[in-house]
């Protein structure tokens, strides 16, 4: 490692005061601290510090996203070949599917990181503050909530919008009100609805031949369009137009995730791997995840009891493992900056997030992805929830004082 250190040592003077590139010191510092955790010793306060820092926290979230990313790459290829009528078996054509998916997905990831980090570095240099690591996660989340067929320029515009309007105008990492990745998605959803919803966007077909019966519909849209009195689970079909067969088989496909949808959201299994990792490492809030799940489950159960249409009639578990619910629960709702900050607040925030997700999904056909709207709404509500939780604490203290007096 010494030689890498020597390289940094030799170019550092250029960036320090009086150097040629002193303006870019923060950018240089960002790179150096990425490679070497700096040898700063404590000066005031506690003499020892916990081993964790923000880089590790963010890195762990990125690690948790890897299963979803890898699955998303494969599934993008899988859906494509299903639509083309090739390799329709899940186990067939693995390499072709991965290759096709990688060509589709990786550019989206790269564009998201280049645009986002570029803006972050630029602002850090301009405002002379250290580069915060928040975008390491946002940069991975943004591609995973995009349809595979999204044009790259849209990814770039959405990322820029999310970083600048969603985050930096509020003061940067730690200050934002809305989850940046969801801001990016919501921006595209409202600015370019035809590219973010409907049946044509989920499966890249490259305009080529499609199998008979191809619709490109997601399960959510199928559930919404199911004829009255029918059970959606029995009618559901895949990208090749093949019915899954039974309610259990539909659930099986949704759990593993070989269904159409945004890149990272389809596989409940891959997301659960990430969730286990986040909970195991303690990085993700179990309170938010659990209460979000319970909220979604309650709403699904209520709908099933009500049963006014086939979408309401969907089995609660099926309801929760399709669409973006799981992804939102594990990776979006748990964002510590935009979630409620008090423990009590987290329960309320998570529960209503899950509750509203399913409610919006079922009630409003214009927003099949209710999760996005629900989490953004709860992001806005989180400070209010916290406010009342803190107010209750104040009341307890005042009451105690009165009793004592």
């Amino acid at each position, binding site marked *: 490692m010494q030689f890498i250190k020597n390289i940094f040592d030799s170019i550092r003077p250029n960036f320090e005061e009086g150097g040629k590139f002193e303006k870019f010191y923060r950018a240089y510092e960002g790179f150096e601290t990425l490679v070497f955790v700096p040898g700063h010793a404590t000066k005031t306060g506690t003499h020892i510090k916990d*081993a964790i820092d923000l880089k590790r926290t963010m890195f762990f979230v990125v690690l948790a996203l890897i299963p979803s990313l890898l699955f998303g790459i494969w599934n993008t290829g899988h859906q494509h070949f299903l639509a083309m009528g090739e390799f329709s078996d899940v186990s067939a054509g693995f390499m072709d599917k991965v290759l096709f998916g990688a060509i589709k997905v990786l550019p989206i990831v790269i564009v998201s990181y280049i645009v986002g980090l570029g803006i972050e570095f630029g602002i850090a240099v301009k405002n002379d503050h250290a580069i915060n690591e928040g975008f390491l996660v946002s940069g991975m989340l943004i591609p995973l909530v995009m349809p595979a067929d999204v044009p790259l320029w849209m990814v770039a515009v959405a990322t820029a919008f999310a970083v600048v309007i969603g985050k930096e105008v509020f003061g940067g990492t730690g200050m934002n009100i809305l989850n940046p990745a969801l801001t990016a998605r919501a921006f595209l959803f409202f600015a370019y609805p035809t590219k973010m919803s409907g049946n044509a966007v989920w499966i890249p077909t490259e305009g080529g031949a499609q199998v008979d019966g191809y619709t490109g519909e997601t399960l959510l849209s199928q559930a919404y369009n199911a004829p009255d009195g029918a059970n959606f689970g029995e009618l559901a079909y895949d990208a090749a137009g093949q019915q899954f067969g039974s309610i259990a088989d539909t659930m099986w496909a949704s759990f593993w995730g070989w269904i159409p949808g945004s890149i990272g959201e389809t596989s409940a299994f891959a997301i659960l791997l990430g969730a286990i990792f986040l909970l195991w490492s303690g*990085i993700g809030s179990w309170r938010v995840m659990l209460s979000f799940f319970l909220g979604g489950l309650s709403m699904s159960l209520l709908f099933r009891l009500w049963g006014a249409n086939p979408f309401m009639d969907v089995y609660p578990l099926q309801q929760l493992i399709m669409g973006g619910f799981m992804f939102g629960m594990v990776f979006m709702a748990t964002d510590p900056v935009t979630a409620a900050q008090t423990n009590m607040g987290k329960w309320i925030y998570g529960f209503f997030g899950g509750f509203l997700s399913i409610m919006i999904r079922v009630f409003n056909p214009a927003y099949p992805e209710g999760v996005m709207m629900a989490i953004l709404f709860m992001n806005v509500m989180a400070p209010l929830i916290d406010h009342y939780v803190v107010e209750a604490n104040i009341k307890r203290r005042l009451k105690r004082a009165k009793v004592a007096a």
Partner: protein
Amino acid sequence: MSKTVKIRKGANIPLSGSAEKVKGEATFASSFAIKPTDFHGLIPKLVVKQGAEVKAGSVLFYDKYNEHVKFVSPVSGEVAEVVRGEKRKILEVRIVADSNQAAETFDVSDVSTGEKVKQALLAAGYWPFIKQRPYDVIADPKDTPKSIFVSGFDSAPLGPDYDFALHGQNADFQKGIDALKTMTNGAVHLSTRPGGAADTVFGAASGVEKNTFSGPHPAGNVGIQIHHIDPVNKGERVWAINAQAVAMIGRFLNSGKADFSKTIALAGSQVEKPRYFTTHIGASAKSIVDGKLVDGDNRVISGNPLTGSNVGVDGYLGFYDDVVSVLPEGKEPQFLGWIAPNFNKFSLSRSYFSWLMPKKGGYALNTSMNGEDRAFVVSGEYENVLPMDIYPVYLLKAIMTKDIEKMENLGIYEIAPEDMALCEYACTSKIEVQNIVRSGIDLAIQELG
């Protein structure tokens, strides 16, 4: 009513090098210093000049705003130097000790009332041991507190064992407790770990409310104990005093002689044989650590690693401290340290392996920041290590925005920087929590009185 409290939040940081329960050879220090900076917010007025002869118990300086509160020399000798800092602020009053120790004597024949106890303690320089909540500053002798708290154990990493340090001082400790009782209308609370033996100093003490606290640090912090037993509301005063100081006060009231000797622990991973020593308040660090350390770039801390101050080998033992911790400095950058598994590092988060495979014998943590200052991102960390009904992040925000009313409502009266030291330790964003709390308390003193 005695209470049993189970503390659930908090954390023990398993540092290696806790002091073994053995008393080492005492080396009498030749140089001592009393540091006005140990007493937060104090404006000292000097009464001695360089070269003056002093005895143990002779006044060195007093509080400009409360002239009854006097600060005295711990030993007899000559005032060697008054060290000043910026704007001629007095940092240290250094004393070179005589080989023959002499002490001032005081009339302590009648200490039956609170007033008389106060006068005796004020005159002999024992008063500064008594601190008050709110604000964690020296108590005002004009107040009558609603209760007085003594913590019988130190739960901080490398903290000393008071039971051991006070062994055999039952009579002095009891005398101290009796004296404290005269100054309050309420109770004197003594908190211990559950299951203490009856023949120890704390077990034998009578006339006190004995409370037991189980659970991790900061269970031993008196602020936490007050919060759970007799919380401070607006306008109320509670006093707190260190267990060893109680025995020192008792010793003084029994003998009438000023004697500031006490037992301290020398601990930490850089100490060859961590153990206890008898020394005096204000002793030079050199007299304590000389020849007892492992070679290397060491940080000598007066106090524990969470709340102590970096005094260096040339510094002096703080007035309130009863442990000297020596840790290795951590100034080496680490290649990709944020990815590395880092088996030798300890973390309260589970992103390191320390929770799965705790290192036997504890961790030799160094003083590395383990990262850099960042914006506040990760929520819930502070709450996990603060066993109080207080929302720490909201209190800190109120302090930073100087919102006095909010600070008051959110618990500034109950908190001391040391209570939130673990929050600072655990913080992912490396925020200086104790400094913020201190500045909030300063603001509260200034605005609310």
